[in-house]
């Protein structure tokens, strides 16, 4: 793992590459973030960097949080998030982290909450097929069979049924950076990211499984 950055989804648009192909991009306000805490093996048992994002009024935070932020001389920040790393050597308290950490072409993972869809039925939640809409059919959006009869006499755990859909933490892996404006801390990623406009996102260098050079 390496240190990422927190940001806000601003919306989607498209741009054109050198070949003239239209590329769908998501524009993200990435930062400015600040290092608010450095966790080390001696003090916390593991090495990590905590960063804060989204400056708010002082009255929006409670005293314990303000006290915590005062240690790093940070302004009142709404969101705090930790990134585990191998060594915290190059970071110092209060250090600013901006979109310039990334370059065009970098591959990143984006984490955020997906759009909440409430209590969703079988078709929307699990992509079940629906029944015929006409010819006397009364089975339009029903689940069909949920299992065998007297034996086992119960529905097996994990049976896909209607329920809450979305509103969960989702990771979108391996999105590439299409554009960067480091002065204004803006990033455009190729493709879609979780949630609606205004959603809080964490953007970190892609976690490539099996790559021993990382870590």
């Amino acid at each position, binding site marked *: 793992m390496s240190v990422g950055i927190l940001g806000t989804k*601003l919306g989607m*648009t498209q*741009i054109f590459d050198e070949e*003239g192909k239209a590329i769908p991009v998501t*524009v993200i306000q990435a930062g400015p973030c600040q290092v608010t805490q450095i966790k080390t093996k001696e003090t916390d048992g593991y090495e990590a960097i905590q960063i804060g994002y989204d400056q708010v009024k002082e009255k929006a935070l409670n005293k314990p949080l303000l006290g915590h932020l005062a240690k790093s001389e940070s302004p009142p920040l709404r969101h705090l998030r930790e990134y585990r790393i191998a060594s915290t050597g190059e970071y110092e308290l209060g250090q600013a982290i901006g979109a310039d950490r990334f370059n065009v072409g970098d591959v990143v993972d984006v984490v955020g909450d997906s759009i909440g869809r409430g209590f969703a039925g079988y078709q929307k939640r699990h992509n079940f097929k629906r029944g015929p809409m006409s010819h006397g059919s009364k089975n339009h959006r029903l689940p069909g069979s949920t299992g065998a009869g007297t034996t086992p006499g119960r529905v097996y755990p994990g049976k896909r049924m209607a329920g809450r859909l979305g509103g969960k933490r989702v990771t979108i892996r391996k999105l590439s950076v299409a554009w960067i404006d480091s002065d204004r801390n*803006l990033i455009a990623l190729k493709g879609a990211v979780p949630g609606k406009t205004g959603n809080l996102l964490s953007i970190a260098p892609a976690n490539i499984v099996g790559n021993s050079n990382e870590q």
Partner: protein
Amino acid sequence: MNAVEAIQSLEAPHLKTDLPTINVGDTVRVGVRISEGGKERVQPYEGTVIAMRNGGIGETITVRRIFQGVGVERVFLIHSPRVASIQIVRRAKVRRAKLYYLRDRVGKATRLKQRFDRPLK
């Protein structure tokens, strides 16, 4: 930071500023960039604009023509670099935003009444 401002600043360099005013019903000549065998050339495509969709960087026009007796419709993303040029050949008077009814007509019935009050620019 204003989200709309941020997105517009990303789009701005990709938007064309020299496009003519296109209306539904216009006959246009579109220069399409085609690359074959490493070489690039511009192929003209002429037809009637029967629909316009979206605005800003995603704006498209649907251009219909009859080619060898077969109706052909192509959708052009007008801000795309693949579209080298768009030239208005003729303007017509129409009473619809979408001229899909032209698909059901052949020959003389597909004619549109020319209008002269709009300049060809």
